[in-house]
């Protein structure tokens, strides 16, 4: 599966009043690429699944904000 985050670079004009954001990132989660889920994909244990938010490892795509330190 490809990466779950993609980048693009908006046009920066010399007349933009504010400091420009050079790179924008957007999410492309696993459900875009999997098609019909095939059987017997690898699973988490029940406790891991609860924390991850899904039973199948292929769907796991955690999102962290800029204020967080990833553990």
């Amino acid at each position: 599966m490809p990466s779950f985050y993609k980048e693009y670079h908006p046009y920066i004009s010399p007349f933009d009043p504010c400091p420009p954001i050079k790179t924008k990132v957007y999410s492309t989660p696993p459900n875009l690429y999997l098609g019909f889920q095939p059987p017997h994909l690898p699973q988490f244990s029940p406790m891991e699944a609860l924390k991850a938010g899904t039973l199948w490892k292929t769907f796991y795509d955690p999102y962290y904000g800029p204020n967080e330190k990833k553990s």
Partner: protein
Amino acid sequence: MKQLPPEYYQLLEQLQAIDFVLVELTLYLDTHHYDQDAINQFNHYVKEREKFKKLYESNYGPLLQYGNSPSGSPWDWDSAPWPWQV
């Protein structure tokens, strides 16, 4: 209203984990009617859940409404705390 002991949270999380597996398998089986292995896994966890449900309810009271869980004495379905207070 009695306070809940620390063991409560552990047991609750174990029950939440099993129930979560059942939710995930339910949604999967809704679009995959013929996956016998998934059906077997689902039915296995249905039995597992029964054990955890009985253990939880014997200590902390009914989980389900309208007779899907038995009542204590006096009636304890509506005793505090409720899930958002816990």
